């Protein structure tokens, strides 16, 4: 069974629903109509463009193009992590903490999956490499931005407690233990919830897409299981790295809390 092709008219019909919604919310002065239209248009343009890019990429299977695409994805994700920080690190650290840990965890997990589990030929075949990396980066980005934000916010709010613990002779690791644990839980809660609810409460997006596009459900399910495992390990390792880097940066070599390394939040 192959997918039923969608015509532009089909998409316009779906867009009409959003348009009606926008008009109604504007009438009711709910103030989201404009945003709804703008982000719908952004989404459409971005996805159409990426469709073109992927088509070109699939036609020319070359590792350099795949690497370029992967780098762009990583940098955009890194910028996104910075944008979601309430109190970000000064200087390059804001970008460095998230991007480094995302790079290490997402790329390692993706390459391992490609080389050991899925094994397409060649291993960087873009049909496999790009969607897998995208899934991983997207989720790791969420995990890392949540955990680092939680870490820096908590350190700021609990600075007196942290210093009290230092005063009593605890190391920076001991003084930060509770906060690190909270941050890690914050990072992993979404994926743990998603795993617990998947298949019963929700049909994961990737699987739904695959089934709609004509894949046999049994195959779609296997890929979804693979993705879930990849995502949880990617998010977990990435957040661990980010928490480690960020909590190191909050202290100096004499275990002093250095909150001046964080910027004041922008209003």
């Amino acid at each position, binding site marked *: 069974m192959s997918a039923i092709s969608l015509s532009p008219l089909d998409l316009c019909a779906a867009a009409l629903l959003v348009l009606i919604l926008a008009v109604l919310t504007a009438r009711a002065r709910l103030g989201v109509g404009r945003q709804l239209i703008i982000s719908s248009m952004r989404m459409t343009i971005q996805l159409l463009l990426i469709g073109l890019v992927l088509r070109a990429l699939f036609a020319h299977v070359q590792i350099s193009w795949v690497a370029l695409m992967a780098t762009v994805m990583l940098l955009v994700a890194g910028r996104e992590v910075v944008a979601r920080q309430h109190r970000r690190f000064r200087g390059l650290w804001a970008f460095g903490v998230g991007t480094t840990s995302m790079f290490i965890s997402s790329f390692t997990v993706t390459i391992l999956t490609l080389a050991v589990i899925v094994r397409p030929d060649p291993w960087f075949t873009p049909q496999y490499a790009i969607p897998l990396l995208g899934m991983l980066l997207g989720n790791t980005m969420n995990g890392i931005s949540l955990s680092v934000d939680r870490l820096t916010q908590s350190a700021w709010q*609990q600075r*007196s*407690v942290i*210093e*009290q*613990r*230092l*005063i*009593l*002779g*605890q*190391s920076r690791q001991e003084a930060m233990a*509770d906060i690190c644990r909270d941050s890690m839980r914050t990072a992993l809660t979404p994926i743990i919830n998603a795993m617990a609810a998947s298949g019963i409460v929700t049909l994961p997006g990737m699987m739904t897409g695959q089934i709609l596009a004509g894949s046999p459900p049994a195959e779609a399910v296997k890929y979804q299981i693979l993705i879930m495992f990849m995502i949880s390990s990617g998010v977990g390792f990435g957040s661990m790295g980010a928490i480690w880097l960020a909590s190191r940066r909050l202290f*100096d070599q*004499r*275990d*002093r*809390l250095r909150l001046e390394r964080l910027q004041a939040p922008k209003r």
Partner: protein
Amino acid sequence: MSYAGDKGGGGILNQLRIEGLRYHGWGPIELTIGPAECVCLFGASGSGKTLLLRAIADLDPHDGFLFLNELECNDIPAPQWRRRVGMLPAESQWWHDDVSGHFSTPDKRRLQDLDLDQDILTWQVGRLSTGERQRLALARLLNTRPQALLLDEPTASLDPESTRCAEATIAAYRAETGAPVLWVTHDQQQAQRVACRSYRMNEGNITLQVHT
């Protein structure tokens, strides 16, 4: 755990020596506090008393040298330094739900000396009054057996009777361990009761005060 400073002769000799200490653009501070000596520090709010204690506890970046006996601050890891040079901040912080979580091996007798309730270790932290917190913080600090004490207004929120208890407890600790004490206070009478010497701090400089 040994808290004897001077290894030779078997006597307990702890000396805190501050040489050319600069912090937050203030100083240099020169100050030596001998074994079991108590030095009081006065000064208006914002004159840098608390910041001085923080610098000595190596909580803030500083220049100059800090010696406990012949050991310089940078010779040992910061947590070890802070366990030896114990600071009591003006406002104590508590992170466990119950009081006992903050004490590894509580010294019941000291809690009694500080006029604290027998069962206070089983209490929730939220139930403590300001004065109880302050005395418990002192007990918590002394429990870690520091070799020198930095006290930031340790009796600020205590009634006269509890103040005497706290002063007596600190004096007993000094006598027992030979710990030098640097004591920030606003109370001249308290200084006369507890101090061997007193200094007044002004814009990060200290001057000796004539004692009666």
